[in-house]
């Protein structure tokens, strides 16, 4: 009897989980469906959309009208470049905070995190002016730096959490064995923190890939990534739902595939340290 109840409850839980999952996934599913419809069909009532004819036309038009590969290349460069630069800055910072903490370490960490609570638009004006003066507007280098800076608190926090799990005695052993700070980080700390670092890298790539505020405001054509590619289909003459959907699918597909394959690593990384 108890077993039957458990099985029934399990089935119910599974159904609820699927329902929530579908609810969350629905907007993306709808975008995918709309991307295969003509502009006329895409604005019909939902049931009519589903029953209308399927077409690949939008993908052809989108590819013709805008340079997808250039935007894609920019997105890759910005996501990977800002992540790499972030790691170079964050690894020594997180090392210092985890292994030689001072009285103010916790305060610094909280202050860093508090910058994430600042509305980005609040600093848009000064950064925009700075970009004009430094000639960084619509440049990939400028965007790499900005994306690195906005995600830096998260990278430092995540790495700090992983580093704290590594016993200090192992680093002391490395010091006794003749490793200087650079070798200690390179040969001992980094290899031991690789699972944590991998999930930090993955999360940061996703965040940088999806970042729209700064990429839209600080680029025009040259450095524009896929977010700008999508936005270009929202025009004053009206929304081209089907084409916008096709552009969105093309923009999110790479990161969606990457996220799908690395979901185990991501979940492990994000819950790391939560359960001992």
């Amino acid at each position: 009897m108890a077993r039957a109840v458990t099985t029934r409850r399990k089935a119910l839980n599974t159904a609820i989980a699927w329902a929530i999952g579908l609810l969350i996934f629905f907007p993306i599913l709808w975008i995918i469906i709309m991307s295969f419809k003509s502009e006329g069909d895409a604005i019909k009532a939902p049931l009519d959309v589903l029953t209308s004819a399927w077409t690949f036309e939008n993908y052809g038009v989108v590819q013709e009208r805008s340079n997808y590969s250039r935007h894609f290349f920019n997105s890759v460069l910005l996501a990977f470049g800002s992540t790499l630069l972030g790691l170079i800055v964050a690894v020594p910072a997180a090392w210092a905070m985890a292994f030689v903490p001072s009285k103010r370490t916790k305060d610094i960490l909280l202050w860093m995190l508090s910058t994430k609570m600042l509305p980005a638009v609040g600093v848009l004006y000064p950064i925009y002016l700075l970009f004009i003066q430094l000639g960084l507007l619509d440049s990939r280098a400028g965007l790499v730096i900005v994306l690195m800076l906005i995600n830096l608190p998260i990278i430092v926090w995540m790495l700090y959490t992983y580093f704290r799990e590594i016993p200090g005695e192992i680093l002391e052993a490395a010091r006794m064995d003749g490793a200087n700070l650079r070798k200690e980080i390179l040969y001992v700390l980094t290899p031991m923190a690789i699972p944590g670092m991998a999930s930090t890298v993955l999360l940061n790539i996703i965040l940088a890939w999806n970042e729209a505020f700064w990429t839209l405001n600080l680029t025009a054509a040259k450095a524009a990534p896929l977010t700008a590619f999508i936005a270009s289909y929202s025009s004053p003459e009206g929304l081209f739902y089907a084409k916008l959907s096709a552009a969105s699918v093309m923009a999110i597909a790479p990161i969606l595939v990457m996220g799908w394959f690395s979901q185990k690593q991501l979940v492990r990384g994000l819950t790391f340290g939560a359960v001992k």
Partner: protein
Amino acid sequence: MGQIQLNQVSKSFGKVEVIPPLDLTIEDGEFVVFVGPSGCGKSTLLRLIAGLEDVSGGHVLIDGRDATETVPARRGLAMVFQSYALYPHMSVRKNIAFPLRMAGMDKAEQDRRVENAASVLNLTDYLDRRPGQLSGGQRQRVAIGRAIVREPAAFLFDEPLSNLDAALRVGMRLEISELHKRLKTTMIYVTHDQVEAMTMADKIVVLQAGVIEQVGSPLELYQRPRNVFVAGFIGSPKMNLISGAEAAKHDAATIGIRPEHIEISQSEGTWKGTVGVSEHLGSDTFFHVQCNASSEPITVRATGELALHYGAEVWLTPRPEHLHRFDDKGLRIA
């Protein structure tokens, strides 16, 4: 060479002074054990010698050279940690070779030294395994291997056996002692286990609250403890310490008598008492006897054959030549 000298070395964490200024000389080739209760500062002292902690005052001299400001890697010392501190992502071979690799030694010489250390420590069959695939004892041997390949001026051991089970601990104790006899290199060994201290040391340093209570050979400490603390700390089971009227009879504030220096009889003796708990070890039996001479039960060591039931009436007689006398400050009366 491996002479280590501490001149007025002190350590404070913030306003808390954990080690008041102390002097200590460890001669080349000596096996010195720092022993004391938890929190007495023995590990801190070892870390000051290693350079893993900065001294708050005084100087650390290694082979006559002032090493106070020298980084750990340049002090020529090797350390074995309580948690083994092996690199989990490296094979045993790479773990042992790590200090040589850091020193930029050529690969052939690295391999030769690693093979040599592995054969000394019976690790040859495990060289390609990761630390996670080894038992506690094997891991500790890898940690020792990593220390010996460097051919350091001195080895520092920070409670290296406390994570091992009792049987393995005895085996490793012998292995470390044998290693010392073979290498003749200075070894400083920190432990809270006075049995380890007694069995391994050439010289024992007894510490309490950062203060050196006594320095001497195991037998010196056992036979002539300088104060009540050392008397109570060295020896297992611990020395019986009696104060009050019984001590006054011997012109002392406290008298001490070790369990093995008390005769037990069922017919006659100095102190009359009642047998409490008996601990049978086979070779010996420890009787805890409640008697009027002391408020605490007196521990007596007898042969394993002697059988006395709980509540039996007995007589205890301390051997006068083994009676230790201490004054009201706890210091030994000669």
